[in-house]
């Protein structure tokens, strides 16, 4: 059997297939369909210090080979997460990674500090790239100065593996990646959604209540591949590839571009078993190409 294991900083993953934040709930939504423990890791829905109701409906628009969302980080807040969600997550035997979001640096720090005390949360993913909130989110991830500042502040309070999730809505993602690396990030994950828009021609109105939203799905994959390739060449940190991955071939392409692991997002909505299909498909690929480990593929382009 080929070896699918991989490492991201201090994290040893049984395989490189994880689930993207906001597309997999807290895992239990998928437990009727797959064995959650078979995944390399689960990045759970974003947590903010205070509860958030998110944006008004409509929050979703289907587009060509993709979809827009403007959910706006709806979650029940940090206290609820610790009291009610964390105990359930402790039952899942794989890496559980918290996606940490906020509208102020203090908010990010508060959530990160609390997550550091939860043993079963083995890493956090700092979300400086959500395009659907008025304050914070992407605002932190689209300027070199603020990306550096928020990463540095969280680094001070978070001793475990710190992943920073990058926004594609920038002129140079490499510049942001370098700043985040300077700020003390251990791992980079990219990309978050692309800022986009859908219009209902009959109603002559935007489809989303927020006018703009984030584009995800196969439509963004070529953009994500390009960015993973650029960042992994420029920065020495391990990279997690995200963006439109629907099958094992997509995943392999990201490894070749330089990703040590991948996250599956929108595809979970269409096939709740897609992650386990991808794990099996990677195994088949390695056998077919006479490769012993998935690590041999990483960055070979």
């Amino acid at each position: 059997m080929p070896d699918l294991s991989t490492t991201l900083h201090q994290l040893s993953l049984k395989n490189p297939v994880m689930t993207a934040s906001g597309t997999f709930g807290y895992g239990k939504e998928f437990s009727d369909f797959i064995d959650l423990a078979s995944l390399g890791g689960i990045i759970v829905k974003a947590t903010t210090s205070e509860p958030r109701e998110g944006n008004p409906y409509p929050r979703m628009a289907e587009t060509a080979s993709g979809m827009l969302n403007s959910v706006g980080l709806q979650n029940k807040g940090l206290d609820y997460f610790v009291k009610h969600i964390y105990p359930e997550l402790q039952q899942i035997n794989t890496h559980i990674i918290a996606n940490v979001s906020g509208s102020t640096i203090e908010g990010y720090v508060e959530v990160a500090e609390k997550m550091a005390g939860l043993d079963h949360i083995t890493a956090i993913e700092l979300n400086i790239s959500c395009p659907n909130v008025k304050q914070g989110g992407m605002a932190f991830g689209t300027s070199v100065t603020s990306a550096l500042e928020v990463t540095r502040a969280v680094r001070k309070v978070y001793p475990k593996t710190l992943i920073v999730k990058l926004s594609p809505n920038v002129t140079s993602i490499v510049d942001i990646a370098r700043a985040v690396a300077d700020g003390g990030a251990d791992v980079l994950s990219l990309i978050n959604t692309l800022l986009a828009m859908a219009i209902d021609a009959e109603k002559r109105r935007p489809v989303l209540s927020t006018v703009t939203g984030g584009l995800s799905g196969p439509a963004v994959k070529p953009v994500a591949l390009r960015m993973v390739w650029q960042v992994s060449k420029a920065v020495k940190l391990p990279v997690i590839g995200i963006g439109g991955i629907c099958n094992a071939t997509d995943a392999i392409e990201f490894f070749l571009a330089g990703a040590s692991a991948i996250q599956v997002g929108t595809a979970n909505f269409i096939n709740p078993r897609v992650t386990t299909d991808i794990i099996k498909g990677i195994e088949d690929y390695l056998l077919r190409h006479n490769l012993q480990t998935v690590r041999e593929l990483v960055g070979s382009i």
Partner: protein
Amino acid sequence: MSKVIHDLIILENRQPGPEYHVLVCKAPETLPVCYPGQFAEVAVPSSTHAFLRRPFSIHNVDYQNNTISFLIKMVGQGTRTLGQLPTGTVLNAIYPLGKGFSLNQAEPVLLVGGGCGIAPLLFLAKTLKLNGYTVHCLLGGRSADDLVEIPEFRETAEVYLTTEDGTQGEKGFVTQHSIFRELAGFTRVFACGPEGMLRAVALASRAAGVSCEVSLENNMACGIGACLCCVVETRKGNRCVCTEGPVFNVLDLKGWESPQEVADNCPVI
């Protein structure tokens, strides 16, 4: 109660109206127990334009023959593709999803359906009848072409019809039908249809002091509570229609207690 992903096989595709199709599908293994008001997320086969699954109410369940049916109105490219599928086609579906109608009610109950909103009501009417209820069913549409599955409803319920253009049944909206004058005599109203109709039914029920449950048709991506796209504003905050609905008691829905235009949150540019 666990959810399944099945490759269903279309046994029958009949067309009860110009824009409507009923797909009767055979399950590859024993059907899970389904409740009226629950739905399925159906993948549109080999489609490049319908990227996401489409949610459809469970229209009928036949445990003896191990079949499940969906009523599909052809409105967009996804539903048009589904409506034209020949028998024998494999249809991948995730089901049963969501929470259905409350079944333990005192008689008599009134079911109100508008257009494609009649879809979950046939399964509901059959289940209620099986439990010994006398079921009254008001079905409405824009015109006679929108009144479908009437013979099937007549087998299980006392049926009343209404069309906006008067081509069949009484003329007008469902809430203008004469049965609504006797609304106070019912113990509960179950409704499914366009949001404007549901709000009107909710108001009339409130005025008559009758409890009312509605099945909402919000746009969805995942159908299993992961994406948080299909939310409705409730008294407890935004809630997923796919997991906490699609059936809600109207008392739990925020902003449904007073007359207003159908909410349209999208700003005019």
